[in-house]
């Protein structure tokens, strides 16, 4: 009997099979400072979203014209907007809206885009051909314009914002997943699974999907940032989330005319948007590096 000596790099958690690809990715992610910054900011936003009523009691949309456009002060850390409402309070409540939109949009993309991409990539043929031409059409529009066009059809408001941006995200997922499936499909271990008698459906779920999760995860993080940005854009133009709901883009839009005499009213919502999108991008980039299966052999 030959002596066995697994040629593994030294590590702490190998005893119980804990050196899974997932764990290695986590370790790599932790080392990435930019990703940590992004991740922390997202957690802060999430905390604001969940704890909004606690952090800022009272109705963030209740007007108080006496205090209109007050600059930042001890009372109002970020000042007030044109209707006298606390900008800080509205930003905190707005994080609920923005994260809701982000999650809603990527859910659309995931639920519709991933299965379609899997089927399209694995089976090919006429389904693939038809679906890809459809995707081509949708992707011919720049993302924001597509969302814009859909809002024109569906109407304004929170629900339609999520649907429009969501639909514009679906072809991106389809393309991404399909591309990944095409390459994973050719891997030897997939062939080995077929030789072992594994059914196609099971191959898709147990072999292909886990290996496709990497670009999906990265895209989801980046997509959330994009969703917030697009929603803000629609809100800014007045065709997204409608007032008085505190959406950052809408806040930016209504404060636009006051930019010279009361810059704080537009600046702070703008910073909120910027930081949110930035953190999702940083996290997404960090995930891309961490999940990259460059095993140190």
């Amino acid at each position, binding site marked *: 009997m*030959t*002596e*066995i*000596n697994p*040629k*593994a*790099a*030294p590590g702490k958690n190998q005893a119980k099979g804990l050196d899974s690809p997932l764990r290695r990715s986590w370790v790599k992610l932790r080392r990435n400072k930019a990703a940590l910054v992004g991740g922390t900011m997202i957690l802060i936003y999430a905390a604001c979203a969940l704890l909004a009523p606690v952090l800022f009691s009272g109705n963030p949309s209740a007007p108080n014209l006496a205090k209109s456009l007050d600059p930042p002060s001890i009372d109002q850390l970020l000042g007030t907007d044109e209707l006298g409402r606390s900008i800080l309070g509205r930003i905190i409540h707005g994080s609920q809206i923005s994260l809701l939109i982000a999650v809603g949009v990527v859910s659309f993309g995931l639920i519709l885009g991933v299965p379609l991409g899997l089927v399209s990539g694995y089976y090919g043929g006429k389904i693939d051909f038809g679906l890809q031409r459809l995707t081509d059409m949708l992707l011919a529009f720049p993302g924001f314009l597509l969302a814009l066009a859909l809002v024109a059809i569906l109407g304004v408001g929170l629900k339609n914002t999520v649907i429009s941006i969501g639909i514009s995200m679906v072809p991106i997922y389809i393309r991404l997943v399909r591309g990944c499936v095409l390459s994973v499909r050719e891997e030897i271990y997939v062939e080995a699974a077929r030789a072992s008698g594994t059914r196609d459906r099971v191959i898709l779920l147990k072999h292909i999907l886990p290996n496709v999760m990497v670009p999906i995860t990265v895209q989801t993080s980046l997509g959330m940032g994009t969703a917030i940005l697009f929603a803000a854009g629609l809100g800014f133009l007045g065709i997204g989330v409608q007032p008085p709901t505190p959406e950052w883009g809408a806040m930016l839009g209504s404060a636009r005319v006051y930019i010279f005499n009361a810059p704080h009213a537009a600046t702070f919502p703008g910073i909120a948007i910027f930081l949110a999108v930035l953190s999702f991008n940083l996290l997404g980039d960090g995930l891309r590096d961490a999940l990259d299966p460059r095993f*140190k052999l």
Partner: protein
Amino acid sequence: MKASPAPLLAVQDLRTRFHTLDGVVNAVDGVDFDIHRGETVGLVGESGCGKTVTALSILQLLRRPPAEIQGRILFRGQNLLELDGEEIRKIRGQAISMIFQEPMTSLNPVLTIGDQISEGSRVHEGLTRQKAWHWAVEMLRRVQIPDPDARAREYPHKLSGGMRQRAMIAMALSCNPQLILADEPTTALDVTIQAQIMDLMLRLKEEVATAVVLITHDLGIIAEMASRVVVMYAGKVMEEAPVKNLFKDPRHPYTRGLLGSVPVIGRKVQTGRRLREIPGVVPSLLRMPQGCRFHPRCPEAKNICREQEPSMVSLGEHRRVNCWLEIENPEKEAPAPGQGGME
């Protein structure tokens, strides 16, 4: 082959380390050997033994950091490790050239073959573009590529694997180097093409009298082409011997194991269907075993092998072994390779 008194290349106590996130990897850990004009020395070992890193260290083709090279590499009496960037560049391709393993990836896909071969003579010998091109075509003819004029104008992807390797050999020879480092020059080729290349290399050796360090894991190629063999394992030299002695009377258990584990056509009639195997795996270079680095896999390991690293024992001219067994009973008769199983 009469050895001239001073070796062309003398590698002395070469230590090449890599600083990685997981620790220090001692890829080459105290290697010496030398080579004289016109000789072919084989550097044999399996993956991780450090043979390629040795070659790259000689030409200093490793990035420093993360690589760190210590020791002396005396070429024509001069220590290459003391030369600066410009001086070593003059040596590369001219006095010492290298043939790489994968002809597919070692040739630049966007330059014609002719351009790549002439580069050396243009840079090192200052030939004009035209003269260098003619020389390149001449080199292609030398390596027996049919219709060399037309071939020189083609791009690498148009050539087959065998042709590309010939082109690489042409490139290596173009400036009449005194030493060629050939890193697994035929491993990626089909066996009949390999035979062509080996035939070519033997013929060129007669014409040109260049010294060759032939790096390979294939013992058959070594038997045919090398006059002397250095066996490496996990960064160290385990044995060195003239080729006939190595195959007839291998002294190191690793060499014996290696020779026994290679299937040879026709041999199983005598030795049966079971190959002599070396148990276990090559140790990770990050976690080298204590004592002799081969001991965990050695069937003849003794207590001292587990505790202390052996020192090299000289058995004659260009004949040495790095093993406690030689130090303890030097007259022991070594069993012939390939006899019977190991268990």
